């Protein structure tokens, strides 16, 4: 087990692309940590730099007490699960799992025994003699995990470990992964572009954009108080409403509607007002301090509907409506934000 410390890390590729830009990060011992961001934000580069597969242009990486910046990947005591699992196609499952042990010159008997033990823990007991090509995606993913576990590393690094699974399997694998990490207690960093995955799995999340960390926090903090409009729009399965607004005193005016500003926010400024679709009350009857518009789109989410109101002066206001209301497109409707749940950004920072 080891904590990870990244100091002032930069990575510039030939051709001047700056994938990481003076990045600092601390991951505590035993923590399950997510690197979240859109593609091209540098999250995978950061993970690969921690693994040692990329050499940083400047800055340092430490695992525990050791500065490993110049160490090759094999001597860092890390194990990695790749997006496509990177199983060795010419070896059976047992040999795949035992490969790190073979490199560590563990004897054949011992090696097979430990591989079988780890495999049994992951429900792979009956598959030991199969080749990777004869496994389903979920099984391949577990073999990749087993290989990482068998290596007994100080740190696990997962690169989009769930992205190649179909939707249902992904949910199962998610719970499985979370329980596994808690049981093993090994420091784990995983990369994902899926905000739901990050929220579900991680103890803490770093949201990245353009080679920098925009916000670090627990899933709850990142979800409830996103530090920037970028984080706000990235986190949450239904995108947050971000509307241009004017703050005057402790009242806000957006799209011609005036309503109270969130507690503790006051001043005189041009701002951006953000509110999640879940935190708006929908009504087919007029409501005070509510956005009024025509129902443009109704998307069924299962237990609720996502309704987009065409409100003049906005790109549209999205509201989550509980099941049974069934608003008809083309009718007029009102959506009132919960005052305490609104977020106000002035020039990109949360007030």
């Amino acid at each position, binding site marked *: 087990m080891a904590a990870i410390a990244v100091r002032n890390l930069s990575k510039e590729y030939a051709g001047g692309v700056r994938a990481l830009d003076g990045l600092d990060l601390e991951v505590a011992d035993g923590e399950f940590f997510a690197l979240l961001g859109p593609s091209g934000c540098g999250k995978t580069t950061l993970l690969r730099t921690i693994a040692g*597969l990329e050499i940083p242009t400047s800055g340092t990486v430490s695992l525990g007490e050791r500065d490993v910046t110049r160490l090759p990947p*094999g001597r860092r005591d890390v194990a*990695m699960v790749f997006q496509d699992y*990177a199983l060795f196609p*010419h070896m059976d499952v047992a040999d795949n799992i035992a490969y790190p042990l073979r490199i560590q010159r563990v004897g054949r008997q011992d090696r097979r025994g430990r591989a079988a033990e780890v495999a049994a823990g992951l429900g792979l007991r009956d598959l030991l003699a199969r080749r990777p090509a004869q496994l389903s995606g979920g099984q391949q993913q577990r073999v990749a995990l087993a*290989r990482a576990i068998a290596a007994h590393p100080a740190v696990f690094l997962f690169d989009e470990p769930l992205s190649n699974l179909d939707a249902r399997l992904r949910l199962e694998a998610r719970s499985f992964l979370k329980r596994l990490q808690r049981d093993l207690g090994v420091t784990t960093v995983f990369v994902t572009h899926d905000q739901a995955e990050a929220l579900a799995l991680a103890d803490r999340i770093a949201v990245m954009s353009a080679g920098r960390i925009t916000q670090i926090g627990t899933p709850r903090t990142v979800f409830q108080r996103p530090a920037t409009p970028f984080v706000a729009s990235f986190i949450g399965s239904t995108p947050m409403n971000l509307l241009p607004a004017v703050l005057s005193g402790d009242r806000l005016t957006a799209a011609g509607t005036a309503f109270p500003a969130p507690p503790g926010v006051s001043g005189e400024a041009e701002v951006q007002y953000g509110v999640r679709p879940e935190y708006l009350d929908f009504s087919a009857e007029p409501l005070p301090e509510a956005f009024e518009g025509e129902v443009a789109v109704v998307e069924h989410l299962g237990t609720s509907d996502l309704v987009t109101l065409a409100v003049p002066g906005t790109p549209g206001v999205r509201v989550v409506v509980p099941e049974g209301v069934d608003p008809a497109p083309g009718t007029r409707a009102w959506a009132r934000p919960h005052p305490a749940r609104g977020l106000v950004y002035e020039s990109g920072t949360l007030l």
Partner: protein
Amino acid sequence: MATTINEGTPVIPTGRSRRAKVADSGGRLAALLLSPTMLVLALVIGYPVLAGFRESLFTRGEGLDADGFVVEGERFVGLDNYAAIFSGDRATAFWNAFGNTTFFTVTTVFLETVIGVAMALIMQRAFRGRAFVRASILVPWAIPTAISGLLWRWIFQADGAANAVLGTDILWTADGPAAKTAVIIAEVWKTSPFIALLVLAGLQMIPREVYEAAQVDGAGALQRFWRITLPLVKPALLVAVLFRMLDVLRMFDLPAVLVGVNQKSVQTLTTISWFEASNLRYGSAAAYATVLFVYIAVISYLFVKLLGADIIGQAREVRKKPATKAGAKTVRKVAA
């Protein structure tokens, strides 16, 4: 259990016969659709092989009749031509050619494989000027063999580049071990790129992540080569080696141009057959060719069997799957 049998037994025969019928008519249609190909193959491969074999059982224009005239037409001699090759007056020449052919095959294919794999590893690397390196590695393969034979003869002549560089006075293109060496060098130079090209194609099929996984697990460069690269590139490499073996066993133009036909040290089965034919001993030439044909067939069969070269691997894979399924079904039926 009893119910399974009662329900199961009447269904099985009808199902089976219907399936058999479908397979039968499908087979007939397949045979019909394949017949043009079969016909062409029979004409361009089957007929020449058989005609060559027939020729090897005859002799013509060799004997004189009682009046001292050359006998016209062919005369059936049975296996006389073969007897002459293996133990008769041509046995020494034959076994020499056979030995040379085998020797060239073993040495050149071994050297080509080592050099070709090394070239492929170099070509796969990303570096500045890679396109240039790739192109220049492939140039020898693109030159016609007869031309490269001339080129090497020029290099290997008594006052040529080879002697100048080595500071020796070896008569490379005369006869003896030096001529063998010259042929091997020229052949390896010319055909390593072929192996390199096929191996490169194999290397590019290996995902980069697999190497990285091995690297994270702590495998060094040598371990990665022996445990990851080589096993994964093996199918491509075996195909390349097999093709090269078949080529070298039939080697003709390079020794013929570089040293000359009927030179003991570089005489191969093909050059000896050609020499016989150009001296109008067609029966004997055909016998040599037939022996070579059988030799090549045996070698390729052993190669495919022993090393499992997967020449037609995918077709076999597809055929295996329904077979195992059917097998599983039978087992289940038996169990019921």
